[in-house]
C-alpha cells in the first residue's frame, strides 16, 4: 500500500511502438488512395459507401474514447486515471475524422442521392426495388422537415463541433494540470463531463440516425443510437486494451499500468459485450415480435433475396450473433483471460474486426439492384471498404502518436493519481 511516487515514472515517457515511424501515416494515405481508386474502378457509390463505413466505424470508436474520459470524471473514478492520458491522446483524432468526413459532405452536395437517396427529390426509387421518386414519396414528405440536405450538413458540422470541442477541453484541462497541479482543472473537467455526456449522447445518437439509419429512410428503430454507442464502446475498450498490452510489452507502462488495470478494462469489455447483445437483440426481437412490414423489411433485405433465396447477409448476421456476442462472451468470462495480455489481445482484435462487420451489416446493404436485393457482402465494394478502414485507421494511429510526446505519460498531478498507481484487486 505504499504510495508510489508519481514523478519517478513520468519524467521521460518511453516511446510507444511505432513512435517516429512513418508507417501509420504511410499506411493511412495508401489506404485512402486505394479507397479513392474505387471511385474510378467500381463507381462513385461503391467508394463512397466504403468511405462512409470506415468513418462510421472509427467515429464510433472515437466517441467511445470520449465517453470513457467523461465517465471517469463523472464517477470521480480513481482506478482509470493512468489510462485516461492515453484516451486523451486518442481523442485527438476527431479533427482528422472531421477532415476525412468533408469529402462525403461535398459528395452529398455535388451528387445528392448517391449515398443518402432522400437527398435527391428526383431519385428514382425503382432503381432500388421501390417505385416513384423520393419527391413523390409520402414517407419522405413526412420526414422532409428533418431530412433535408442543409439541415443534415448543419447537424454533421455540429456533431464534430461538439466532439472536437469536448476533446480539446479535456486535453487542455489535463495537460495544464501536469504543469500547475491546480485542482480547479479536475473540477472543470467534472462539470464538462456532466454536460458533455448529455451532449455526446445526443450527438452520437443523431449521427447514427443521420449517417446510417437514414440510408434506409423508410425504416425506424428507437434502439439505433444505443446500438451505435454500444458498438463504439466495445471498439474503444478493445483499442484501450491493445494500447495497454503493447505498452506493457514494450516497457512503456512498466510500473504504471498493472494487471488490475487490465483486469478492469477486460471486465468492461465483457460488460459491453453483454450490453451490445442486449441492445441488438432487443431491436431485432421487438421488430420480429411486432411483425410490422414497415420495420421488418430492414431485416428481410438482410436475410432473403426477393425470390426467397437466402442472401449472403444472412450469414453475416449469424456471424455477428455468434462471433460478435457468443464467442467473446464465453471467452471473456474467464478471470485469467482478462489479466493475461497474451490472452486478452486476441479477443480485443477479434472484437474490433467483428465490430467492423457489424458496421458493414448496417451500412452496405443500402446499395441495391432494381429487384431490391442488396449487393452481396463479398463483392468488390468490400475492397474499398477495407482500404478506407485501414486508411482512416492509419490517420488515427498517426494522430495518437503525434499527440503522445506532447504530454507526460500519466497525469502526474491528478488528485487521484496515487490511488490509480496503487490500484489493486
Amino acid at each position, binding site marked *: *500500500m505504499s504510495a508510489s511516487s508519481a514523478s519517478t515514472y513520468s519524467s521521460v515517457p518511453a516511446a510507444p511502438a511505432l513512435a517516429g515511424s512513418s508507417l501509420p501515416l504511410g499506411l493511412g494515405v495508401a489506404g485512402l488512395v486505394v479507397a479513392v481508386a474505387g471511385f474510378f474502378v467500381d463507381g462513385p457509390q461503391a467508394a463512397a459507401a466504403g468511405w462512409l463505413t470506415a468513418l462510421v466505424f472509427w467515429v464510433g470508436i472515437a466517441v467511445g474514447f470520449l465517453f470513457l474520459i467523461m465517465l471517469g470524471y463523472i464517477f470521480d473514478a480513481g482506478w482509470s486515471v493512468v489510462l485516461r492520458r492515453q484516451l486523451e491522446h486518442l481523442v485527438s483524432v476527431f479533427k482528422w475524422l472531421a477532415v476525412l468526413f468533408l469529402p462525403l459532405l461535398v459528395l452529398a452536395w455535388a451528387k445528392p442521392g448517391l449515398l443518402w437517396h432522400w437527398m435527391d427529390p428526383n431519385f428514382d426509387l425503382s432503381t432500388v426495388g421501390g417505385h416513384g421518386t423520393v419527391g413523390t414519396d409520402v414517407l419522405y414528405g413526412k420526414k422532409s422537415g428533418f431530412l433535408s440536405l442543409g439541415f443534415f450538413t448543419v447537424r454533421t458540422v455540429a456533431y464534430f463541433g461538439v466532439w472536437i470541442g469536448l476533446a480539446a477541453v479535456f486535453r487542455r484541462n489535463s495537460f495544464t494540470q501536469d504543469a500547475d497541479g491546480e485542482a480547479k482543472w479536475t473540477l472543470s473537467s467534472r462539470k464538462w463531463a456532466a454536460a458533455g455526456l448529455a451532449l455526446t449522447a445526443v450527438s452520437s445518437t443523431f449521427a447514427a440516425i443521420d449517417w446510417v439509419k437514414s440510408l434506409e429512410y423508410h425504416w425506424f428503430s428507437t434502439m439505433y443510437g444505443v446500438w451505435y454507442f454500444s458498438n463504439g464502446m466495445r471498439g474503444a475498450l478493445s483499442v484501450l486494451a491493445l494500447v495497454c498490452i503493447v505498452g506493457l510489452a514494450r516497457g512503456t507502462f512498466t510500473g504504471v499500468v498493472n494487471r488490475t488495470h487490465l483486469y478492469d478494462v477486460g471486465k468492461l469489455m465483457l460488460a459491453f459485450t453483454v450490453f451490445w447483445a442486449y441492445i441488438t437483440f432487443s431491436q431485432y426481437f421487438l421488430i420480429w415480435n411486432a411483425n410490422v412490414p414497415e420495420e421488418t423489411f430492414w431485416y428481410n433485405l438482410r436475410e432473403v433475396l426477393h425470390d426467397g433465396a437466402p442472401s449472403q447477409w444472412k450469414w453475416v448476421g449469424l456471424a455477428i450473433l455468434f462471433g460478435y456476442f457468443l464467442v467473446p462472451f464465453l471467452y471473456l468470462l474467464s478471470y485469467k483471460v482478462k489479466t493475461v495480455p497474451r490472452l486478452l489481445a486476441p479477443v480485443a482484435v477479434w472484437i474490433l474486426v467483428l465490430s467492423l462487420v457489424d458496421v458493414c451489416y448496417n451500412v452496405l446493404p443500402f446499395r441495391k439492384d432494381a429487384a431490391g436485393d442488396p449487393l452481396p457482402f463479398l463483392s468488390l465494394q468490400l475492397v474499398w471498404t477495407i482500404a478506407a478502414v485501414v486508411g482512416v485507421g492509419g490517420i488515427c494511429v498517426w494522430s495518437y502518436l503525434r499527440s503522445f510526446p506532447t504530454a507526460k505519460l500519466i497525469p502526474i498531478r491528478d488528485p487521484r493519481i496515487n490511488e490509480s498507481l496503487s490500484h489493486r484487486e
Partner: protein
Amino acid sequence: MSEQIHGYLAAFDTPAEIMHAAEQVRDAGFQHWDVHTPFPVHGMDSAMGLKRSRVQRLTLLGGIAGFTTGMLMVWYMNAFDYPLIVGGKPLFSPLFAFPVSYELTILFAAFGTLGGMFLFNRLPMHYHPVMKAVTWPRATDDRFFVAIDADDPRFDAERTREFLEQIGGKDIAALEP
C-alpha cells in the same frame, strides 16, 4: 497450556503493517490463520496467499441451469403441454423464450452465488473464538489483527508467540477455545 488455547491474536496499527505481517505469516508457511480489518484492504488476497474463490463456479452452473430452465419451460408450456399459436408465431422459438431464459440465468446465477457463500465461504458464521478477546472489537474500528489458529501444523505455543512479536504484533493475546 498449549493444548487449551485456540490460537493467538496480534494487533497492528496501519494497513501497511498488516500487509507486511500477512506476507510474513504467509511466507512462514502457516495455513490456518486469518486477518481481521475494519475495511477491505486491497491486495490482501495475494499478501495472504489466498487462492481465487471457488464461488463463481457455482455462479456459472446456476446461470447455465437458469438458461436451460427458461428455454425448457417456455417450450413445455407453449409447444408441448398446451400448444397455442400467438400472433402467427411458431409454437416454439428461442427468440421469444430468450427474455425469460435471460432473467432466469441471472436469478439462478444469484442463487448459485448464494449457495457458494454457504458452501465455500462457510457463511453465516455466528461465533468465532476471536470474539472473546478484549482487543478484538477494535477490528471494527481502527485496528488490524492477525489470528493464528492452534490447529495449524506449524503452531507452537512458544515460537508462534515469538514470531508474532518479531513481525511487529502488539497486544498479543492467547485465545480461549
